[in-house]
C-alpha cells in the first residue's frame, strides 16, 4: 500500500503539493508514482525563474525503461529545482515526500481542483484494483 500523507494536496497525475510557512509550495511525485515508475535513474528539474502553468509538463523523471513527464500542480514561478536529484535520482524512490521534492514555486493564482489525501488514496486504490 503506497503512502499518502494527510497534510498534502494531490493531482490525478500523481504529483503532490505542500504549502510552506512562507506561502510558497513544494511539489513532487507521489509514492504510488515512484513505485509504478520503478528505479529512477535521471531527473530533470525546472530552473529557477521559469514560469509554469498548472498542468504544464515542468519536470521529467526517467526510469531504466522510460521517460515520464511531471505536470505542474499549480501555476507559478519556480524558486528552485531540487539540486540534489542530479547526483542522486534514487532519492525519488526512497523519500518521495521529503528529500525527493522536485521544485519549490511561488504561487501566482490559487490552484484549482486539487485532491485531498483521502480522495487521492481512493484514486490510487481504484487504479490498483
Amino acid at each position, binding site marked *: 500500500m503506497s503512502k499518502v500523507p494527510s497534510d498534502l494536496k494531490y493531482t490525478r497525475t500523481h504529483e503532490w503539493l505542500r504549502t510552506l510557512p512562507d506561502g510558497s509550495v513544494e511539489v513532487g511525485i507521489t509514492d504510488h508514482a515512484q513505485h509504478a515508475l*520503478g*528505479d529512477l*535513474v*535521471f531527473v530533470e528539474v525546472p530552473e529557477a525563474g521559469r514560469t509554469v502553468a498548472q498542468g504544464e509538463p515542468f519536470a521529467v523523471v526517467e526510469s531504466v525503461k522510460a521517460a515520464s513527464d511531471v505536470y505542474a500542480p499549480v501555476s507559478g514561478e519556480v524558486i528552485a529545482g531540487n539540486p540534489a536529484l542530479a547526483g542522486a535520482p534514487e532519492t525519488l524512490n526512497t523519500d518521495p515526500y521529503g528529500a525527493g521534492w522536485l521544485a519549490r514555486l511561488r504561487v501566482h493564482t490559487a490552484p484549482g481542483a486539487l485532491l485531498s489525501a483521502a480522495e487521492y488514496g481512493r484514486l490510487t486504490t481504484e487504479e490498483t484494483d
Partner: protein
Amino acid sequence: MARRTPLFAVHERAGARMVEFGGWDMPLQYGSVLAEHHAVRRSAGVFDVSHMCIVDLDGAGVRALLRKIFANDVSKFTTPGKALYGCLLNAHGGVIDDLIVYYRNEQSFRAVVNAATRAKDLEWIGRHAASFGVTVVERSDLAMIAVQGPEARARVAARLDARGAERALALSAFCGADIDGWFVARTGYTGEDGFEVMLPADQVQSLWQDLVAAGVVPCGLGARDTLRLEAGLNLYGSDMDEHTSPLEAGLAWTVALKSDQAFIGREALEAQRARGIERKLVGLVLQERGVLRAHQRVIAPDHGEGEVTSGTFSPTLNRSIAFARVPAGADGAVQVQVRERLLDARIVKPPFVRHGKSCID
C-alpha cells in the same frame, strides 16, 4: 490472450510485474531492475526464456540445409555441442531473425529463435527443410531458463549429479551438451558467464525454485535488456530487421563471406560490400546526464544524421549507453537530440561491459 510459460504461476507468486512480449505474458521485473542487473554482474540471476522458440532440425541433410539458410559458417560446427550465433537472411540480405544453432550430432541440430518472429521463422525454415529431407519440430514441450553471472555455472552444476556436474562445468564457452535429459549450454545474452538450460516443461518449476533457494536472483525482461545492451548484443526488431543487412547491424563477424558457403542473401551482401555500406551500427556513450532512447536523432558532424536503435541507462557504468545506426563515415563526437536539447555523445565500439568490467575508457 498472451501465452504463458510453465513458470507463469511462479512469477505471479513472486509478485512480478508482467508485460506482454512477443505474444507472451512475461515478467518485466520482480522488484528493482537495478538490483536484478547487479545480481547478474556480481553473483547470479535466473531468467525465464521459455518464450523463445526451440526448433529441432533432424535428418541427414541438416548440415546442407544450414549451409543454405544460416549465414554463419557451418563448417565451424566441428565438435558436437558447438553453438554458433548467426542470422537467417532473405534474398536481399535483410535479417529475418537472429538465432543460436547448436550442433548435437550429424543428424540433429537445434535452433533457438525469437518469440516475436516464431511463425515466420518456422515457415521459412520449413519451406527450405523439405527439399533437404529435414524434419522441423518445434519443442514446445521444453522450457528454457538462462542462469547468468559469475556464480551461475556453479549454481546450476549443484542441481546435477556428480557426473553431470562435471560434464557441465567442462563445457567450453558457446558449447552445449545433453546431460541427464536436459540440454545445458554455456550461452547467454548478458555478457556474463552462465548456462542456458532447456528441459522438460514439468521440471522447470522445481529447478527454478531450487536455484532461487540457493540465492540466484529472479530477473525479468527489464534487466535482460540493460544487460544485453551493456554486453553489446543486438535485439532483433530494434537493432536490425528485414530492411537491415548484418553488415549494417554490426553483425559482419557472423557472416560466412570468407567461406564458399552459398547461403541465401550472400549475393546481396557481396554486392553491398563491393559498393560500400552507407550505414553502420555503433555504440554511443552519453557524455552528459540524461538517458538515450530508441528513435532519438543522432547528428554526426560532416556525415549527416542517424538514429538511436536501442538506448538505456547502464547500471554498471552509471551513465547512458546506446546503439545507433549512423552514416558509415561517422566517428568520434556526435550529438543526440533528447527532447528539445542536443546532448554530447561519443561513438565507441561495443561491448560496453564484459564480465562485470567496463570496456569503455
